[in-house]
């Protein structure tokens, strides 16, 4: 296959990837978009085979390895529960990162295969691109592994901080630049290996100080990194499909991180520098006084909801932990039978990744046109009779609007307190990740339901 033809086909597959993302602008077109993505991938892989024209025994092995990876991937995709989606995405990011590192290593060892010159005299531009691809890939890999371990609960979600952390990170970043510089002048393979090792270390150090609830930002950021790594390799291979895709994924992840940061009213650097939970906890301790709380049982909650004409449900990470989405939908079905209007309010940072709650509700067969974003629904709370908060906490805290001293001041929150009555399902009165008390607990019109989210929803349904 001629170089021009294959370059054109790579371009087409890049365009198909753009259409794949474009399809996600609405659920109706999204499935078609996914199909475009798959076609784009098939084109890219076929073109690679055809342009290499190397159908020897090596080709058979490529197909075998492709099949092995493919079946592992397909198996995971069908088996994974929807609640584990954040872990899955973090895990997948780490694979992209590691694949980028491997391709870069291979290109470094055997540059002739990639048309980049001979070993020891690789073209300067290619060497820089390779170094960038490998470094970003390595950071993505080790960072995603830590994110995965934290999400999976293997590693504590609490931020790990130590003195001089930021200075060390900065030092290592400078070291990477220096290493790249010397790599270019000496072409030494030792330097290349050190560069990769230092990058692994940076990825690790960058993610350990970030707490569990900041995971939406971290996952989006790593998503972005995996894109930049792919783009770096794309430049090395002079491959348009890879460059386009890398740019798309890179900007996609960057936008998601931005949206997540805005949802918490924090700057990107504030999140990355980490240690949020640790500093906030000490502040919260001071105002610990016993305040009266009204608590109720499933019977009271059912009574309140039965007499309501509209109910707004506010789900949070706790719902995912308790796997309560199906029980919740059953409760809502019963409410709807009694002609009660029900809608769902989703805060941008509810859950552990962007859109986490929406997927869980979709899994439980909640129609997506009953689910609303913060801006769409916030004004409706004042007219609603009951707000049912299940597994959310900080995103409903009115302190964010009233107390400039509070660490979450300025964060957009759901105006739950404006409802006539609030039902708050929670296991205890303990504060959320930000370590601050939620004023909502002590309001006159709030009824606390201390129980496991799933069990409580089931009990309410029985009492309706």
């Amino acid at each position, binding site marked *: 296959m001629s170089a021009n033809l294959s370059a054109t086909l790579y371009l087409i597959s890049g365009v198909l990837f753009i259409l794949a993302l474009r399809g996600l602008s609405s659920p109706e077109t999204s499935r078609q978009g996914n199909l475009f993505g798959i076609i784009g991938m098939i084109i890219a892989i076929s073109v690679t085979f055809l342009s290499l024209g190397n159908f020897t025994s090596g080709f058979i092995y*490529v197909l075998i390895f492709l099949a092995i990876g493919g079946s592992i991937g397909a198996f995971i995709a069908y088996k994974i529960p929807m609640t584990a989606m954040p872990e899955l995405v973090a895990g997948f990011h780490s694979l992209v990162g590691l694949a980028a590192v491997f391709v870069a290593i291979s290109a470094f060892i055997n540059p002739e295969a990639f048309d980049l010159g001979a070993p020891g005299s690789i073209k300067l531009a290619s060497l820089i691109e390779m170094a960038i691809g490998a470094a970003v890939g390595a950071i993505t890999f080790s960072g995603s592994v830590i994110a995965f371990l934290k999400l999976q609960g293997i590693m504590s979600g609490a931020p790990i901080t130590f003195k001089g952390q930021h200075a060390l990170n900065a030092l290592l970043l400078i070291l990477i630049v220096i290493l790249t510089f010397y790599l270019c002048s000496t072409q030494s393979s030792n330097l290349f290996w050190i560069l990769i090792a230092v990058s692994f270390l940076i990825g690790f150090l960058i993610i350990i100080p970030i707490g569990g609830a900041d995971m939406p930002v971290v996952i989006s950021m790593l998503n972005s990194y995996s894109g930049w790594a792919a783009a770096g390799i794309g430049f090395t291979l002079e491959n348009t499909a890879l460059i386009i895709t890398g740019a798309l994924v890179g900007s996609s992840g960057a936008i998601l991180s931005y949206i997540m940061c805005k949802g918490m009213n924090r700057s990107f650097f504030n999140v990355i520098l980490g240690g949020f939970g640790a500093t906030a906890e000490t502040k919260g301790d001071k105002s610990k006084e016993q305040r009266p709380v009204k608590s109720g049982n499933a019977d009271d909650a059912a009574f309140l909801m039965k007499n309501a004409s509209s109910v707004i449900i506010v789900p949070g990470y706790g719902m995912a932990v308790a796997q309560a989405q199906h029980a919740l939908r059953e409760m809502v079905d019963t409410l709807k039978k009694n002609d009660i209007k029900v809608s769902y309010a989703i805060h941008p940072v509810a859950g552990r990744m962007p859109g986490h709650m929406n997927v869980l509700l979709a899994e439980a067969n909640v129609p997506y046109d009953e689910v609303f974003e913060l801006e769409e629904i916030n004004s409706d709370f004042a007219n609603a009779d009951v707000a049912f908060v299940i597994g959310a906490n900080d995103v409903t805290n009115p302190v964010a609007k009233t107390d400039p001293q509070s660490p979450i001041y300025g964060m957009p929150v759901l105006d739950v307190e404006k409802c006539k009555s609030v039902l708050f399902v929670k296991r205890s009165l303990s504060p959320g990740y930000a370590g601050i008390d939620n004023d909502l607990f002590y309001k006159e019109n709030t009824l606390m339901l201390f129980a496991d989210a799933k069990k409580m929803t089931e009990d309410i349904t029985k009492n309706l």
Partner: protein
Amino acid sequence: MEIDPFIFRLSIFILSIFVGYYVVWSVTPSLHTPLMSVTNAISSVIIVGAIIAALSGNEGVIFSSSSIYGFLAIILAAINIFGGFLVTQRMLAMYKKKKKDK
């Protein structure tokens, strides 16, 4: 003077960032999780590089020091491609509209 091909690639790259910017802003927030899983899948087009690396060995030596990395990268990227697209499809199939009948 002839323009270095690198500049063309750079142009594609920069323009793609802008395309990505506008396309991703139009993605509805409820589909942000599928967005992440599908971007995951498409970024695994890095498999193109993995295949080139894997086939870089000559007839006699299929598994040379450089092609081994290619083969490993193929496995990783393939997991991502199949896993990413299939899990996206599984998620998107769940998004349903309200039924008209009551």
